[in-house]
């Protein structure tokens, strides 16, 4: 299947709900005559016990649990043929069905994908036997085939039940478990050949090896988990620092209470609407929270002045992006947010401050925040004026798109805010403490 191509829902449903169960039943029924033969019974008993044991020995990584079952099934195919593999897959499906899964359709789909994998690998095995390929190479190829087929058929089932794209599921399965899976398959192949030449006792070193691997993995992931916890702590600390900084910025000016949060909120929403990754959208959010940090360095009498600012005062106010930039830069924290802090007052036509950047020279994060900053400044009440209605503010943004704002961003922003209902808008403002925002002309 090619990336981006979505399997039609009906076909997916047909494969998972009909083909898988039918194949499961068919493959078991075709294997029964061989199982019935007295010469097969020792193999069946042996593989039942082996499957039972390995079902509860798994290598657990943060993303996947991988058992040796596939290795056991694979060795059965190599040593005895498809019928033995089908038996192992049946036993594993029974254990999973009774112990782990609920829901008949999922149980049948799981059995179907597993048995189909066994059948495809078994068939290829028989075909390879007739070629001159050395057995060791053939085993390796079959192990990789087993992995590929199983992953694909499995992701088809998972994609259907969790309503995701098959390709996405397959990619994430491969990303999260490939190496462990391939390791297990190679182990199965080696185990099979060892047993063929040295008998059952040779399974002992294979099992010991697997157990040792399991312990190593456990220790490794235990340490990884501890590291992750530390990282989470640091992240929480970062959030606390950011929140404290935002609070101190807002505390300077009670009229702009919650301004940083709203700028951050709209900035992140716009970033999401642009299709930026979560990490980048979060950066926009934090940039929004910190964008006005430089106002800490502006005197109170200028910041809280009611009425028009003198030329000199206005000049001082215009210093706040640079002051903020230096504060954060010297603190040595959040270097990725520096462009947001320094350039959120740049204009698209180059007439902004402090550096007079224009167009695409202005970092994206700053262009985004310029919009959300201007929007919130317009709709919020200020000491010297009342906030304008939301619709009016959006009109102003449209009028200034291409001059003050990035045209493309402005359009998306206007569409974004318009997609909010009255209640949703009120909720956004209420959560950040601003309650007297006019949503349209006349309404308050």
């Amino acid at each position, binding site marked *: 299947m090619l990336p981006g191509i979505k399997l039609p829902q009906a076909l997916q449903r047909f494969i998972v709900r009909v083909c898988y169960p039918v194949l499961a039943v068919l493959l078991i029924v075709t294997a029964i005559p061989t199982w019935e033969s007295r010469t*097969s019974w020792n193999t069946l008993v042996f593989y*039942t016990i082996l499957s039972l044991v390995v079902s509860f020995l798994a290598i657990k990584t943060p993303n996947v649990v991988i058992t040796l079952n596939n290795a056991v099934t694979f060795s059965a195919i190599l040593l005895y043929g498809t019928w033995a593999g089908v038996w192992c897959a049946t036993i594993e499906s029974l254990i999973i069905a009774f112990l782990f899964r609920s829901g008949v359709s999922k149980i049948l789909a799981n059995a179907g994908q597993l048995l189909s994998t066994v059948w495809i690998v078994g068939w290829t095995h028989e075909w390879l036997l007739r070629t001159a390929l050395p057995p060791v190479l053939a085993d390796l190829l079959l192990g990789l085939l087993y992995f590929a087929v199983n992953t694909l058929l499995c992701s088809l089932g998972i994609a259907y039940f969790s309503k995701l794209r098959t390709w996405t599921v397959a990619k994430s399965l491969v990303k999260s478990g490939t190496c462990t899976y391939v390791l297990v398959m190679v182990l199965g192949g080696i185990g099979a050949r060892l047993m063929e030449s040295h008998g059952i006792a040779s399974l002992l070193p294979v099992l010991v090896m697997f157990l040792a691997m399991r312990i190593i993995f456990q220790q490794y992931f235990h340490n990884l988990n501890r590291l992750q916890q530390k990282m989470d702590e640091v992240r929480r600390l970062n959030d606390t620092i950011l929140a404290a900084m935002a609070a101190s910025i807002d505390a300077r000016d009670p009229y702009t209470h919650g301004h940083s949060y709203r700028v951050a909120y709209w900035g992140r929403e716009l970033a999401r609407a642009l299709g930026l990754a979560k990490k980048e959208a979060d950066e926009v959010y934090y940039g929004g929270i910190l964008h006005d940090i430089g106002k800490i360095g502006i005197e109170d009498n200028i910041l809280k002045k009611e009425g028009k600012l003198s030329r000199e005062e206005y000049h001082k106010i215009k210093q706040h992006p640079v002051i903020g930039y230096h504060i954060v830069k010297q603190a040595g924290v959040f270097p990725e947010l520096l462009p947001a802090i320094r350039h959120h007052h740049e204009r698209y036509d180059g007439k902004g401050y402090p550096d007079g950047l224009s167009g695409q020279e202005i970092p994206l994060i700053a262009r985004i925040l310029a919009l959300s900053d201007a929007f919130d400044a317009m709709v919020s009440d200020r000491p010297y004026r009342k906030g304008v209605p939301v619709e009016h503010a959006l009109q102003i943004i449209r009028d200034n798109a291409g001059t003050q704002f990035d045209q493309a961003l402005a359009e998306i922003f206007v569409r974004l805010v318009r997609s909010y209902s009255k209640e949703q808008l009120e909720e956004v403002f209420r959560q950040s403490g601003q309650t007297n925002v006019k949503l349209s002309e006349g309404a308050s």
Partner: protein
Amino acid sequence: MSIDIILLSFVIALLRGGRLREVPKFAKLRFLIISLLLQGCSALFPAMGGLFVSLSYLFTLLFFYHNREHEDIRIFMIGWSLNAVTIWANFGKMPLDLEQARKLPYSLEPVINGTDFKHSVLTADSNLPFLADIIYMPFPIARVISIGDLFIMLGAFLLVQRIMNKPISLKGLREGRSYAARN
């Protein structure tokens, strides 16, 4: 049933430091009682034995189903289902492989002449022979068991560990934890 396995499980649980605290409460215990009564009936009325045994297995399965929240019971269910399917497929009797059974120290007369209420002789005509009693198990008490019995024994072992307050969780084992959380 396999008294020796159960005893052995108790010994292991004791060695693991387990002590009997309280007897677990089972839901729908009446299904189990009905099942036992049906087995009794099959011994009393051999002519209808097959039907009684088949029904008895159904009621035991129902009993397990209602107690399925426990892992050990789920393992029981796997084994019991495998045995039940074999018994149903062979009209109420579990085929016994004489080749293996001859190693046993006791007489097979009732099985051979058809008076045993639960077992029959495994022949070429038996259905699902690989799920019948075909495994000779010399220890602790010599017997011939089926693949389903392997699961039942594991289930019995786990059940005893749980009763003795030292549960072993198979799901936990799979996830890398050795023991189940104490109740």
